[in-house]
């Protein structure tokens, strides 16, 4: 085979890994009954593809091929290992072999496996930070470093958190299943929280040069749709709406060179009207329910922004009101910070600063708090204070475009 064809097949395998490796993994975990073994099998399968596809050609259903190859490799490995071990020490072998009759190439089954994986990673018997880390690692395939950056946690701590969670799943025998209908509502909350964090990882990207990572956000939206299909609860609808409304601004929130553009400076004609229409419809359906919660309220806020044709049309009174509702539902310093920003838009930067000053020291390590302070001070022409706040915000911001935006604002301050 000519070298360029081999290179093309390798590129195809790379793309497949990025796009489908988590689906393959989710199914392999079900088939092999173990996270570690499934991960090993996944890598063996991709290695086999690199060897075989240039010779045999790319199979018609690459995902099914990967699942079969991974399962075969793992069972083969177990058989070889078991020659050196007593069979009674490996009670899982019989089960795994019995599973061989299961059809593996049905799309629906693969989707179920992803949902199984989500619910297992978000199991309440796992620590809440471990649920998030594990979902991002296993379901979304983020690296430990990316997750660590998103949670302001050292990478080794995070890696250990993931290992422990996997050990607990194995040792405590947390089942790999979608919870029963009775259990679902209680289990849903942590799933929604995790999905939204995944979305934000894609939308805000904690580090790196690209402001957005469309695949992760699309992944979170896809997961949101899947969960909504399974459980049409208002908060699932609210979360999906919230993600779609944010997503609608993706094209407008960065310029050609990837530099960040603020909401009121965005070209609103570039907002995705389809997403806005779907998001707004979902919000209207969700908000009328007495079970509407924080996701729905946040989506309602996003909808107010989305429906304003120009920044001046924004109904800040409505937005502050919605933040009041949100703050009552989920008192948190970050919500209070957002409310302070909304207050500054409704009543001016002085009022915003006053609201910000009532917040505690909890936000000291949070760059957006310093960025907000910097902006209020800039608008009040309190340049020295603005300068200090911009510098602090820049220190705390790893990501390229967001950081450069702050640096541009800092540089634009008049010398004092």
């Amino acid at each position, binding site marked *: 085979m000519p070298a360029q064809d081999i290179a093309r097949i390798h590129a195809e395998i790379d793309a497949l890994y990025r796009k489908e490796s988590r689906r393959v993994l989710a199914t392999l975990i079900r088939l092999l009954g173990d996270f570690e073994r499934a991960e090993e099998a996944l890598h063996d399968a991709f290695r086999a593809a690199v060897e075989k596809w240039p010779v045999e050609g790319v199979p018609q259903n690459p995902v099914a091929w990967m699942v079969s190859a991974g399962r075969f490799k793992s069972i083969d490995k177990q058989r070889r290992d078991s020659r050196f071990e007593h069979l009674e020490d490996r009670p899982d072998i019989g089960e795994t072999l019995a599973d061989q009759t299961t059809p593996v190439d049905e799309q629906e089954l693969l989707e179920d496996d992803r949902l199984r994986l989500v619910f297992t990673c978000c199991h*309440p*018997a796992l*620590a809440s930070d471990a649920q998030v880390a594990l979902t991002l690692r296993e379901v979304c395939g983020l690296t430990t470093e990316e997750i660590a950056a998103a949670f302001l946690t050292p990478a080794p701590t995070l890696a250990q958190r993931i290992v422990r969670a996997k050990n*607990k799943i194995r*040792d*405590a025998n947390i*089942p790999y299943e979608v919870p029963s209908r009775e259990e679902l509502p209680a289990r849903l909350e942590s799933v929604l929280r995790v999905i939204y964090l995944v979305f934000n990882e894609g939308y805000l990207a904690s580090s790196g040069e690209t402001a957005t990572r469309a695949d992760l956000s699309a992944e979170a939206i896809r997961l949101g749709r899947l969960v909504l299909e399974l459980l049409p609860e208002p908060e699932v609808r609210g979360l999906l709406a919230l993600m779609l409304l944010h997503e609608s601004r993706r094209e407008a929130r960065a310029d050609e060179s990837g530099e960040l553009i603020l909401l009121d400076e965005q070209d609103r004609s570039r907002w995705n009207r389809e997403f806005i229409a779907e998001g707004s419809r979902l919000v209207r359906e969700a908000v009328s329910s007495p079970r509407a919660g924080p996701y729905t309220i946040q989506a309602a806020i996003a909808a107010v922004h989305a429906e304003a044709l120009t920044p001046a049309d924004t109904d800040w009174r409505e937005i502050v009101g919605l933040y009041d509702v949100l703050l009552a539902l989920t008192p948190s310093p970050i919500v209070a910070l957002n409310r302070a920003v909304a207050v500054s838009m409704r009543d001016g930067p002085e009022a915003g600063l006053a609201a910000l000053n009532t917040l505690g020291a909890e936000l000291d390590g949070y760059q957006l708090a310093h960025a907000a302070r910097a902006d209020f001070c800039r608008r009040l022409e309190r340049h020295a204070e603005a300068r200090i706040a911009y510098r602090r915000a820049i220190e705390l911001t790893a990501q390229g475009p967001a950081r450069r935006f702050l640096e541009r604002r800092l540089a634009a301050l008049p010398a004092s």
Partner: protein
Amino acid sequence: MKYLCLVYLSAEKWNACPDSACAAYAGQLQDSGHMLDGTPLHPVHTATTVRVRNGQTSVTDGPFAETKEALAGFYLIDARDLNEAIQIASKIPPAKYGSIEVRPTRELVVDQAEMARYAAAL
């Protein structure tokens, strides 16, 4: 009279004592008729704490951490998976007043020759 002997270990010394030594001693107690049951547990990070308050079951990661609560009894149960174990634990009557720590048990990993050496030294 029956007695429950509870084994406590720090994380650093969790694996300090070989399983074969435990198996050898258990074998001796079996022979002398003292042994009713016993099993090692997985490390403490596999623990799940179940509480029932106002009819709501709360499930949290980790061992029970309330220092004012003391061990009051135990149930050794056989469940399909952790979900069933949690469900069973949530119906243990004192779950309404205190905490039920659910810990998975494990099998001793025994080396026959090593166990024989420990048994001979007992």
